[in-house]
């Protein structure tokens, strides 16, 4: 079932990390409003392959809004114009026949372009490696899961923070290219749980240091990250991280 939408796409094409890129225009006809945004790009790619041209490269995997692989800045907004939706779940019915759609890669010094719309987001992995964990080995004799009670409210808030999919939209959306929402979500998840409190001080200092080292910008509380986050991770986490960092820097450990 093909549809009846005609679109003009302006897509960033860049051969590799060193190459100079440019926006290229593609005309799409017969787009179905039931297609997802990425399926629309699949169709474009299929057409390009038929014309023996190189298809547009973009990251994607699960296509159900949870793996965090898909990215894209669509008409200036990470994951497109609809809130709380990843690009893979954005559907073409949210656009109008005759629209011109700009598709660009995430832009940040810490997210260098690899090719076309694909960027390198390993900075997030390195931040996680710097402290985004609880130092516990796989135990042959673990403590029973119910031996430490956790307030439901705290467990729920930790879960809300942990629902971050690490897609990088926060840094892409931030006018300062700051990764504070991502980092603070991880810091918050662990800070809210008794298991994570043990090394909270060390964690927040190391993760912030790594974040700064990666070249992300500074948070100026614009709130764009929260608006564009496909999982609705809250700014409250950034406040919590700032608080944790202050305490970690000045409150002497007992």
């Amino acid at each position, binding site marked *: *079932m*093909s549809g009846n939408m005609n679109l003009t796409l302006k897509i960033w094409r860049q051969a*590799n990390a060193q190459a100079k890129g440019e926006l290229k225009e593609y005309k799409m006809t017969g787009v*179905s409003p*039931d*297609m*997802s945004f990425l*399926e*629309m790009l*699949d*169709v474009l790619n*299929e057409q390009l*392959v038929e014309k023996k041209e*190189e*298809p547009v*490269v973009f*990251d*994607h*995997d*699960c*296509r*159900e809004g*949870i*793996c965090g*692989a898909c990215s894209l800045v669509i008409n200036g907004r990470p994951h497109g114009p609809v809130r709380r939706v990843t690009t893979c*779940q954005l559907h073409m019915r949210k656009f109008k026949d005759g629209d011109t759609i700009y598709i660009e890669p995430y832009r940040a010094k810490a997210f260098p372009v*690899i*090719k076309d719309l*694909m960027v*390198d*987001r*390993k900075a997030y*992995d390195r931040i*996680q*490696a710097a402290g*985004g*964990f*609880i*130092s*516990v*080995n*796989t*135990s042959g004799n*673990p*403590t*029973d*899961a*119910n031996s430490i*009670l*956790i*307030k*439901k409210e705290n*467990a729920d808030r930790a*879960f809300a923070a*942990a629902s971050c*999919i*690490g897609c990088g939209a926060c840094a892409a959306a931030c006018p300062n290219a700051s990764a504070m929402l991502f980092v603070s979500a991880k810091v918050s*998840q*662990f800070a809210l749980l008794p*298991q994570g409190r043990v090394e909270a001080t060390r964690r927040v200092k190391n993760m912030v240091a790594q974040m700064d080292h990666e070249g992300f910008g500074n948070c100026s509380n614009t709130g764009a990250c929260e608006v564009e986050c496909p999982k609705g991770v809250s700014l409250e986490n950034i406040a919590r991280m700032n608080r944790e960092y202050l305490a970690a820097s000045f409150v002497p450990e007992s």
Partner: protein
Amino acid sequence: MSNILDAKIPAGPLSKKWDNYKEHVRLVNPANKRKIDILVVGTGLAGGSAAASLAELGYNVKAFFYQDSARRAHSIAAQGGINANKNYTNDGDSTYRLFYDTIKGGDYRSREANVYRLAQVSGHIIDQCVAQGVPFARDYGGQLDNRSFGGAQVSRTFYAAGQTGQQLLLGCYSAFQRQVGKGKITPYDRHEMLDLVVVDGKARGIIVRNMVTGEIERYSGHAVVLATGGYGNVFFLSTNAMGSNGSAAWATFKRGAYFANPCFTQIHPTCIPVTGDHQSKLTLMSESLRNDGRIWVPKKKEDAEAIQQGKKKPTEIPDEDRDFYLERRYPAFGNLVPRDVASRAAKERCDAGYGVNSTGKAVYLDFKYAIQRYGGIEAHQKGLENPTEQQIYDLGKKVVEEKYGNLFQMYEMITDDDPYVTPMMIYPAVHYTMGGIWVDYELMTTIKGCYALGECNFSDHGANRLGASALMQGLADGYYVLPNTISNYLADEIHTGPIPTTLPEFDAVEKDVKARIEKLMSIKGTKSVDSFSKRLGNIMWNKVGMGRTKQSLTEAIEEIRALRAEFWKDLFVPGEAHALNPELEKAGRVADFMELGQLMAMDALSREDSCGGHFREEHQTEDGEAKRDDENFSYVSAWQWVGDSIDNAVLHKEPLVYEETKVQQRSYK
């Protein structure tokens, strides 16, 4: 039994086997662990947990994954939960009961000792995850909450909203990244394993393609661990991720590992149906919806046709003209029959022409009745006398919203239909593959030093997997089984020293890999990879899908053969081999699927009975249920690659022995 298929089940009573094993297994001391390199392929629940645990033990781990981050493996998409034998709810659960449910759910096609071990370690998994900071759902007393799931009479499923897989994988990923930070794991992102290097009968390394540069690279290790997931994408449309593939497993198969039960595929009944030719994947709607939704299609064919043509709306069909076929066929279980049964029943109705979307491949899952029922109860509780229809609807909608709001929202996002007003449309879709690489009790394949974990192995699920068991198995293998069993093999490797990648065996395998890439690039035909992938998927879905016959399977084998020949003659791959090239990546995977699909059909053809997800239409009871033949088919089929074509694959059989389970026929009437 051929000797190579010795599962090495430890002696002793079932409940003591694992403890006995652990008490007597050979160990590697800490100083020697530092001298040993392990290659782990895949970073889902099984691979990620294995890599982290092995690194914690002191081994040097190199981890390979095709995604840009270890956190993106498709385990992340699991929704429902993870089973464990905790019995926190005091409803009679135990290790034995979890074991028994899993064996029975698998329709008596899995290995007793493996499944019992799985049930034994399941509780530890929950403890470990909580210690890692996985935010499971809790009650107001601060304790972990449980929900119930299909195939069990107890509440043993732990969950984190509808994102349990995500939370477990992120827990595992955090342990993984901790070891990356310590330098004990070296991650190789955007690297795809293309082949296995076997030296003197032992797995010694892998050949990978750096997906960014296109370079072919060699890595050596004292053991190779495959945790590369399932091969559901052979059907083109599935709930798997776009990149999920069977190529690493397939390469290992070609290097001597046996492939077990390839035809056992799980088709999940509640997925959002296909809307058009452009669809790239299918999205699951949680099984829990069947608790309150009623499944139906129109009774009259003209109604069905009118709906298909968009001339009629489902809400215009009166109740008496609706066919609640599950309730009709299975009065005892109704809409809550197991996955395989529900899927087959939906297909039967659609094939008969009663499907309800424009493609005729969908059935309704209707919440109208639940809304009315809940609304009535609420109105009664609120003391409303003679409530209006609208009042009842509003009250009922609120209850349904609380229970399933997230799923309804997701459904609306994808279909643009409001499921509170018009019934949801659903259709079965490929979800999981129970088959995989054959492994023994230690999870070692038939190649020494090569292990397979999680969905990648032929697993503990027999012919049908129960809900919330895949997460359990992945983590059990990675956290608790492999770290204990691998030392039995590595104890002999402490004197081996570093393995050079300059061995002639590496040269030979790399040459093969390069030659195949060269061949794919040089066909320069006219058709895209996706076009072949779709055609293969069509054959698989129609002839090796939910209902299989001798004829359909024979035809499938012929058609796949022909398609494969066409593929190697008329494929077009744009771009270059020595650069980032997603089309080339897909081409390699589809080339392997072209063979794997055929093996699935061959396996299904050889199994002249029906069990779990494998339904041979010739072998059914009078009322259309699966009819098992335990006398002749109670075995694990293990296929061996011989020569240079899948046509020559040889079937071996590992007989299944049930010592503690009474084997019975299932019925849901």
